[in-house]
């Protein structure tokens, strides 16, 4: 059987056999980028510099709220925001140490430890990247995937950083009389609706303020997470989070995608990145 000529395969094997190859400069990196992400980032000039993490473990105490009022739990809001900020700061420090200019694919998670104490670990983790052709001006952080960043940068934008806002809110319990009176009616629970509105607005406003302070023009891939963590159903944290961006080209660069129609019954996944959450799942 004759062998098909394949310059790339031969070059790759020659490099493994210790003959040549256009090797990377600088330190060996680790990255949680998928192959697609690594290849696409290389296309726009970014090289991975290393996996970076930051973590803050907080003891989340208790704040008392009136049983029957809607109100923000400002101490808890402050703690939840502060803890994330510390985890991010420590991750950014790590990114600086490995010579990164930005962090892609950030995962900002809260893990509640269910031991005897209300402990929450805030973890920030992502891959630091750098473009040797560019001068660093601080570290930008983004929770976008490599594919998204490729598109964003090709379209003429630059990620500025993460923008997020938190709000921990106590939703009032209904009085007993009210509860009994409504048992056989379809009725809007006004206090719930307005509480959710209020809390969501607060979180989003704080996120927008952050983006404005960073002189961003907009926020992409924003989402709102709504969780009760360890507090039971009437205390809810709203977290609004997204990547703030600025247009650096003169104008938006058109990408003009080809239109395709797949003939498969099912759309085959193009990448091995996790599927995006269904549109309209939130908000």
């Amino acid at each position: 059987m004759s062998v098909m000529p394949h310059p790339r395969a031969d070059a790759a094997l020659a490099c493994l056999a210790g003959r040549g190859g256009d090797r990377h400069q600088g330190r060996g990196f680790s990255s949680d980028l998928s192959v697609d992400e690594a290849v696409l980032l290389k296309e726009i000039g970014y090289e991975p510099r290393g996996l970076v993490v930051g973590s803050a473990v907080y003891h989340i105490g208790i704040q008392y709220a009136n049983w029957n009022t809607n109100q923000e739990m400002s101490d808890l809001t402050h703690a939840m925001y502060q803890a994330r900020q510390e985890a991010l700061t420590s991750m950014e420090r790590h990114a600086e140490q490995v010579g990164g200019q930005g962090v892609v694919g950030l995962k900002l998670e809260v893990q509640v430890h269910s031991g005897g104490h209300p402990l929450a670990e805030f973890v920030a983790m992502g891959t630091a990247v750098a473009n040797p052709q560019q001068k660093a001006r601080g570290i930008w952080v983004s929770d976008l995937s490599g594919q998204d960043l490729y598109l964003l940068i090709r379209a003429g934008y630059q990620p500025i950083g993460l923008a997020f806002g938190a709000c921990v809110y106590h939703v009032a319990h209904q009085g007993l009389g009210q509860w009994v009176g409504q048992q056989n009616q379809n009725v809007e629970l006004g206090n719930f609706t307005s509480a959710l509105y209020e809390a969501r607005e607060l979180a989003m406003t704080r996120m927008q303020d952050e983006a404005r302070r960073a002189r961003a023009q907009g926020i992409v891939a924003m989402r709102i997470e709504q969780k009760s963590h360890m507090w039971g159903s009437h205390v809810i944290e709203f977290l609004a989070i997204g990547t703030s961006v600025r247009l650096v080209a003169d104008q938006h660069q058109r990408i003009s995608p080809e239109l395709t129609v797949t003939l498969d019954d099912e759309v085959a996944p193009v990448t091995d990145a996790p599927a995006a959450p269904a549109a309209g799942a939130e908000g």
Partner: protein
Amino acid sequence: MSDQVEAEQRQQASIEALERGGLPLAAQERIEELRKGTTAWTSDLTVSEMAAIQHAGFEPVGMVMGSSVCRIAAQWGYTTVYGVGGSAGGGRVRSYPCPHGFYGYGVGSEHRPGYNWEHSYYEAGITETRNLALRRILEEARGLNAHGVVGVRIIRRHLEGVGNSLEFTCIGTAVRRRGGPQLRAPFMSHLDGVSFSKLLHGGYVPVALVMGIGAMEIDPGCGTEWQLRSWSNSRIQQISDGIEEARMLGINHLESEVAAVDADGAVGVETDLATYELGGESMLVELFLLGTAVRRYAKEPLDEPPMPIMRLR
């Protein structure tokens, strides 16, 4: 009866082969059969992976595996070696003195310093188990004159009923390029066949499977315990440090393995953080990372830039 004797003899021979650093008889025979080419090649590749590998200039030669079961010995706790600089395995230690001023030991049970220390002996045990399994899968791949192994799946589990045991098994498909140069060690990658092909097109070639493990025990001191019992929201410095240290250790160990195989970096690193309660307030935080070390062989971009598409379904 003679069948049983024969089976026992085979088993004995397999154990002896393993002790000599070789493969058990069943594996030797399987490889021999595949090498002779008298049997069909085996692979766990999907059809698209298979097509992608051929597109990248390689062909599958057979499924290969390596496995090892070890006992991971218990490590002497730092709690038993107070005052000794460095833990039993020579790992990292950080101490948190009693903030209330009772520095001596035995002043009262509620006053004691806290320690974060690395279970380096435990880390070494897991690394050694992994090394044995990897050596065996590479041995099989070499036996097939393969250039590499793709789509390696890792099974890492504790055997039930066997205390402190760890099974480490890796299974993948060996691939070869006809007429390619002989490699001293076949490459290994946990990426599937399609990703392997994309990686190659992107200018990177896989080198080896790399792992990083960071295990830190956190023994809270009285300062930390008092903080845990309080009503306020506050950062717990000792536990934050311990978890961050475990993560850093894992990443550092991974990156030093990358350097050891003369690779440029690692992609597709998967992380797994586990926390174990050790009784009292102590806990063990373990970060496990696994990735494929890659070398860049070409700097130039893809032959054709990726084409943006919009799917109309």
